[in-house]
């Protein structure tokens, strides 16, 4: 922890950027896995459309839903693109903060050991201001990330409803019923997987207030 010399702002002893970097890396890994799962959904939606076409008039309701699922999978893909961009920026911003904290710690030590040398104190303040600017930037990123995650969560809720309706429609698919059930069941499983991952993300300490 940063020693407090009594001459620099107390808030220097903020949470460590090293810990935040570990947390943001965990979020990034979780998001990468969601993106990979979302890619599977695209392929599933295509399969559902082909299947609905083959089933033709025996599964009209499923046909409508499979088109909706296709639209959903495209929306999800776009949302994932946005999420990847925001998380990449957040990882970079936390790394910058880590640089700031290291510099600040060294300057603060120099200030203490030099008995509060005025030049060192000025340098320390300038560096501190820079860090605060970076921190404000990161706070924005944090909110942005939460916002995007919230939008993805809403989208996934919609996907869940679609998948469940498709499951019901599959029951009326006569000869195609079992293969339609399988496709809609897989879809539902994947949506659940994404929903679980999003749940994990929201609990990350990265988002908790300091």
């Amino acid at each position, binding site marked *: 922890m940063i020693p407090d010399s009594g001459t620099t702002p107390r808030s220097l002893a903020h949470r*460590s*950027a*090293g810990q935040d*970097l*570990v947390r943001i*890396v*965990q979020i*990034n*890994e979780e998001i990468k896995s969601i993106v990979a799962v979302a890619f599977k959904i695209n392929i599933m939606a295509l399969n559902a459309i082909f299947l609905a076409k083959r089933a033709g008039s025996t599964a009209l309701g499923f046909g409508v839903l499979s088109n909706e699922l296709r639209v959903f999978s495209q929306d999800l893909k776009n949302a994932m693109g946005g999420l*990847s961009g925001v998380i*990449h920026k957040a*990882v*970079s*911003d936390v*790394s*910058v903060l*880590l*640089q700031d*904290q*290291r510099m600040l710690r060294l300057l603060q030590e120099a200030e203490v050991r030099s008995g509060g040398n005025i030049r060192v104190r000025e340098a320390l303040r300038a560096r501190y201001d820079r860090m605060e600017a970076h921190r404000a930037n990161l706070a924005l990123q944090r909110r942005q990330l939460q916002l995007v995650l919230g939008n993805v969560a809403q989208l996934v809720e919609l996907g869940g409803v679609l998948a469940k309706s498709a499951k019901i429609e599959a029951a009326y698919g006569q000869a195609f019923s079992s293969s339609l059930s399988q496709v809609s069941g897989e879809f539902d499983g994947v949506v659940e997987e994404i929903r679980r991952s999003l749940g994990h993300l929201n609990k990350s300490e990265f988002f908790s207030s300091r």
Partner: protein
Amino acid sequence: MKATQCFFQDGEHKWLAIVRDPERPDALIDTNEYLVAYNGAGLLLDPGGAEVFPAVFSALSAEFDPAALAGLFASHQDPDIISSLALWLEFNPKLPCYVSWLWASFIPHFGGSAESFVSIPDEGMEINLNGLPLQAVPAHYLHSSGNFHLYDARARVLFSGDVGAALLPSKTDGLFVENFDAHIRHAEAFHRRWMGSNEAKRAWCERVSRLSIDMLCPQHGAIYQGPDVERFINWFDGLRVGVAVG
């Protein structure tokens, strides 16, 4: 923003290059960082300077989980190689850094403690990356007095630190050398001045010409592949180095 490119892949065995940062301040020389990944573990080679840490860290994270890094490998002690050490250690205090024994007590000036380093003896050593044997190949005086390259016999890739480095014009951004003759003009002055010993250079050329190498990857500039690897070794062998006017 730096970009990450995979240039070798055989299942879970990969080589990634983290290259070309258009946002890098002009005063900093452009560097290439490399990652060898094997069955989920990674070794980061010449992780770079403290100033480029955010660019390297975020580019790496896009393709590989930094928490799965098993270690850092520093070819030598220069600031563009390893001055980011303290920041990597903040992220993971247990990350070992492989470096020549010669520098093991100098590099802590960038950060880290005695436990952070695995000293490589002069003759080199094998580094086992989660079951993948990697060889630290001696390259002393090229240009640093305690200097190692890293050879991956399975991938036939040699990471060659500053050897093979080229200071390319800013528009050149290909990952691989495309025209050897045009490329090597940007490497000549660098090698003449930075490489200090003709004997060391001769020994290195002999040593590496016994290895099977498909790609030779320097820390600055583009990667030599296929016949350009031999072309480079022959060119270097014939170059008189250790020359400074003044």
